[in-house]
């Protein structure tokens, strides 16, 4: 079985229909044989399911206003809540409750509900950042790897510059300049994320470029653009997709950390896990530990699931890693 798969995934571009289907079946079998990867996939699907439900039918989960930290029904009768400290996790509030900093003494924002809302936004931003960053980076990387010469040199020196600043600080600096909003946070992370894919896409292009089928395409008279987009790109995309699946877990760690240190101004809070943790920042040292630990643990679970899944996918793409 392993011998059939040897070297195959790199040649997707020229595979015939039925061969491609066989390969998909084999890939699926390799992936599903990996128990931890499947566990990661299941957790990931639960998160995605939650995000979709909140988007399409928030009522099913008992969520009323997906975009605000304070639910409207709470907004209406704030007096009922005032003076109550955050409640610890219990059967009534599985994740406990937290407090909105702007409204002191209101401790009845249900963390489970807030988390369910936040997962939707977190998944959306992390996919947005990684997909846009990967698309821009990979395209630049493929062109740079294929053309080589001065263009390649310039692109690589530019990526050097982006790698020369620790990414958290670069993100802070970019956010500082373009303004502290959720969208700008995503934008700042795209700006620091594309160079990674430019390098990855370039190195994949350099290895693919030497393959015989590229040579024959050139001999058959294919133009540069056709070779790049018709022959090289399809071979670069699968490993890039695996990298994307891994990065979705990494990027959520970075932007939730940025949100935690207060990237978003406190008068414009959105339900995002790092923001929720930031809300609990002043409460947690006084014994209300769950206000920070719960959102942190949810992020960890998501990143863990994605990393497990990504590891499984890497085994599918790279047969040498299979054991």
């Amino acid at each position: 079985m392993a011998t059939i798969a040897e070297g195959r995934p790199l040649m997707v571009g020229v595979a015939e229909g039925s061969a491609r289907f066989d390969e998909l079946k084999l890939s699926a079998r390799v992936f599903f044989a990996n128990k931890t990867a499947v566990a990661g996939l299941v957790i990931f699907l639960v998160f995605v399911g939650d995000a979709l439900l909140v988007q399409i039918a928030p009522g099913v989960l008992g969520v009323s206003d997906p975009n605000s930290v304070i639910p409207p029904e709470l907004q209406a009768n704030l007096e009922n809540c005032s003076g109550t400290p955050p409640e610890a996790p219990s059967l009534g509030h599985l994740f406990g409750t937290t407090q909105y900093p702007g409204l002191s003494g209101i401790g009845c924002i249900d963390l489970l509900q807030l988390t369910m809302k936040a997962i939707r936004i977190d998944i959306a931003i992390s996919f947005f950042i990684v997909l846009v960053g990967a698309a821009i980076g990979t395209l630049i990387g493929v062109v740079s790897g294929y053309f080589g010469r001065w263009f390649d040199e310039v692109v690589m020196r530019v990526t050097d510059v982006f790698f020369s600043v620790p990414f958290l600080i670069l993100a802070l600096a970019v956010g500082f300049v373009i303004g502290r909003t959720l969208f700008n946070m995503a934008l700042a992370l795209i700006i620091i994320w594309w160079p990674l894919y430019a390098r990855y896409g370039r190195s994949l292009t350099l290895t693919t470029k030497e393959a015989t089928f590229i040579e024959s395409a050139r001999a058959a008279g294919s133009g540069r653009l056709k070779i790049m987009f018709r022959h090289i790109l399809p071979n670069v995309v699968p490993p890039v997709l695996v990298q994307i699946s891994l990065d979705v877990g990494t990027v959520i760690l970075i932007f939730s950390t940025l949100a935690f240190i207060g990237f978003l101004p406190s008068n414009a809070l959105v339900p995002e896990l790092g923001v929720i943790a930031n809300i609990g920042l002043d409460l947690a040292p006084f014994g209300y530990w769950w206000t920070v630990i719960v959102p942190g643990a949810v992020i960890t679970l998501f990143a863990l699931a994605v990393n497990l899944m990504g590891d499984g996918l890497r085994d599918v793409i790279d047969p040498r890693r299979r054991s």
Partner: protein
Amino acid sequence: MKLWIYVVRRLILLLPTLIGLTFLVFALERIGGTTLFLAQYIDPHLTGTARQALIDQLTQRFHLNDPVYVQYFYWLGAIFQGDWGTSTTIRQPVVTGFLWFMPNTIMLTLIASVLTWIISVPIGVYSAARRDSILDQGVRVATFTLYSMPLFLIGFGLFLTLGAAWHILPYQFNVDLALLPSIPRAWFDDTNSVSYPTHILALDAFLHGDWPIAWNAFLHVILPALALALALLAGIIRILRASMLEVLEQDYVRLARAKGVPERTVNNFHAKKNALLPTVTSFGYLVSGLFGGAVVIEYIFTFKGIGWWTTFAFLRGDVGAVMGSTLVFGLILVVTTLILDILYAFLDPRIRYE
């Protein structure tokens, strides 16, 4: 290739990175016009003609009416002369801020990297040597989980448990606030809580023979350093374990075993040394992670280093400090990568031919 040729080539490659880095910071400052840039030099309380006069003076000095590339060179000139603008958070020149806060961060990162090293090397080696044992499985689960944790959860988890809840170690500020009044004003500036001459309180107190304060200040470094180490060691252990597993498959290790060298010696002598070499390359990753991580960790523990200052400045809209830190962190990373690359080429001659 001779080592010196490699060094020269590496230095030449450094030039575009340095130009790019400075240009990046310059561009960030200027992307929305000159308002952000001027804010570094103008006191916000200044109004009317005095303000206009200062703006005119700055416009002339930095040639703000000339093309952008001309402006860049005047800006770079000012940077070279040590004029990085003024920080509104500390009401001092930005460079003074670096002098004050950088030593604390350097001490923190040094202790954190030592901690990372002494924790991760034995665990990585042992985990690889006892592959698939219960301990190895445990290490893998632990590092995988740690690897998936956001930095703030690691930091804040330690802050809450060892600090706020169990009071095992001090968890806020560089020294107990109760001790502040007892520090002699001869070498301590009370308004900015800066100590002299090294600006590292533990070291300064030690130099001045004030043992209780030195000890107390030293204790305040441990928890943030531990948090930083925890955040980084998962990555290091994974790299070390993988390279150790690879080395253990090599012929010379097999030969050592075959000729009857005890397993312990094989692991510690034949395998470990060779497995450590590739791990040294990940030092670059370590350094980058240390300084990036310091931003968050120092903020959580209110440890007054440059990371704390950067976050504080970011939240208070202090342009000079944010842009200055970006440049300084960039320069540190560029220079350390350069040193590590040269060191690595010195240790492993094969690198020079790539």
